[in-house]
């Protein structure tokens, strides 16, 4: 049997219980969202964070309370002893533990390819770009451009514009936030956070979007910048990275990120009082799925993965648009701190008896 001795070690128990505890937490969290009919994105996100926090914090906490939790006799009285499943043989071909290792391996690989490597590449690119920019400005002695060029060349480096040059953004509190124009006919819109937050907008968006759409889209990015001041999502992501092997955390963190988008949509509506313009701005940003289907590309694993990702992203955008276009925006909470504490308590108590 593959590494069954590992299951008797603390790290083995921690790994196994991480998986089991996240499963139970996910069921309890989803049940609570149903039970209280919670629809407010902030509340949903808060409850889903329990699924990410509980597996990491649970095992050490329980071991502090009772260091004998790993003993055979405790397991006999437990609600669920996961080792009993892991030792099971499936028709003599493999054990459940072997299958679990495969799932863990695939999840870790997905994390590596989809998140870790792109993140490291992005950090390296940013570092190189900053070094190059510092070298260039030192060499030329020029001050950074403060105004967009009147006839910029396509592909020329982005330039910071003052938000007063974009009348559509009037009314948004953009002090301390740089708006950076990207010379691209396509639709590029994203923000960076930190001490010097920036919102990057492409020429294509400025030319094609209506004033109201542009304002709503920028307001959404402003929501991200404001939310980043309480880095809940960053902390959640760090806990998610610690569970790089856990498929449930992988799925739940994506749901947490989706709720974050809806929270920023709500913040944009609060700033602009115009949900329909935000909806039409998001509609414009959706990828052209018909174009992707008919493109003559070599069908290989990579392109299929990209297609699946694009389809999934499109579904998310459609969901946001539908939510914004509901006749009465559904921002009623259905929940607050009492519900959150109840969910947390149920998860903590149940998971203590899952070893």
């Amino acid at each position: 049997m593959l590494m069954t001795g590992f299951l008797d070690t603390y790290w083995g128990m921690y790994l196994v219980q991480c998986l089991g505890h996240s499963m139970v937490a996910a069921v309890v969290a989803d049940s609570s969202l149903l039970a209280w009919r919670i629809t407010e994105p902030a509340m949903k996100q808060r409850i889903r964070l329990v699924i990410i926090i509980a597996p990491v914090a649970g095992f050490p906490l329980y071991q502090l309370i009772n260091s004998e939790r790993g003993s055979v006799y405790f397991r006999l009285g437990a609600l669920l002893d996961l080792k009993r499943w892991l030792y099971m043989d499936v028709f003599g071909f493999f054990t459940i533990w072997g299958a679990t290792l495969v799932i863990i391996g695939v999840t870790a690989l997905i994390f590596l390819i989809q998140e870790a490597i792109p993140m490291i590449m992005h950090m390296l690119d940013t570092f190189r770009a900053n070094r190059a920019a510092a070298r260039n400005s030192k060499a030329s002695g020029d001050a950074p451009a403060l105004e967009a060029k009147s006839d910029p060349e396509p592909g020329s480096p982005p330039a910071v514009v003052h938000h007063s040059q974009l009348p559509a953004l009037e009314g948004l509190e953009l002090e301390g936030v740089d708006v950076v124009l990207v010379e691209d006919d396509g639709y590029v819109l994203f923000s960076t956070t930190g001490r010097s937050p920036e919102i990057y907008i492409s020429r294509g968006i400025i030319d094609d979007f209506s004033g109201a759409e542009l304002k709503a889209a920028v307001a959404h990015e402003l929501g991200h910048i404001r939310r980043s001041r309480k880095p809940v999502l960053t902390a959640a992501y760090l806990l998610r990275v610690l569970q790089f092997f856990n498929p449930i955390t992988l799925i739940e963190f994506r749901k947490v990120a989706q709720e974050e988008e809806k929270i920023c949509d709500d913040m944009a509506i609060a700033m602009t009082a115009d949900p329909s313009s935000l909806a039409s701005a998001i509609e414009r940003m959706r990828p052209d799925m018909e174009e992707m289907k008919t493109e003559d590309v070599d069908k290989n694993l990579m392109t299929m993965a990209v297609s699946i990702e694009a389809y999934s992203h499109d579904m998310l955008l459609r969901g946001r648009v539908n939510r914004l276009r509901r006749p009465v925006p559904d921002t009623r909470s259905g929940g607050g701190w009492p519900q959150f504490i109840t969910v947390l308590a149920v998860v903590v108590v149940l998971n203590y008896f899952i070893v």
Partner: protein
Amino acid sequence: MNENLNTTSAPEAAPRQEPPGFWGGLISLAVMVFVLVIALMGANWLPGTLDKGLIRQYPDLESARRELGFKKLHMPTYFPESVSWPASRILGQTTPHQAFIAEFKSASNGTPLLVVSQSAKPMPPVFDSLRMRQAIESSTMDLRGRRAEIVTGRCASQEPCSMLSWQEGQYHMRLLMLGPPFTLLHMAESMIGFEPPKNPQIAPKTPASLQPAVK
């Protein structure tokens, strides 16, 4: 860029449903959690029915010996008067390896006093009630031709206890008892014959993760 806007038409207005209050939702959640608990209990029970070799409790030594298929189940023939007979708890398994554990209580106050275990591999502590938490002294000795390890230390509530372990054929034997080691030695000698083993095997080193902390 998107010439053909895949416009999404506004969904029809769903009938408004007021969310339930805290207590109403709590009742619904309680029902769902109850169902989850039943499902977890069922999930815990199922492996035991599919694989009879998983660890479980037995009512007596004979049923354990019969169902576990041990070639020989070594039990002391000498028990001090302080130990109550029969065993208060008997556990056994064949998955992932053969193991048998018996707990005996004190004849005077009914508290756990002695644990006898026989397993194909060294096992982690079984009973919460009797477990060496701190080893003070450890030494090896000859036990009728077998190399035995004797450890004295403290169990729960800082009570002095002793542990004796050795290899008997293919099995790892262990005795753990409250009190000094002398009684353990007599009991161990009663478990094995007077003849030394034909092919003496050195007991495998107990993995560090299964050893008590050494002071």
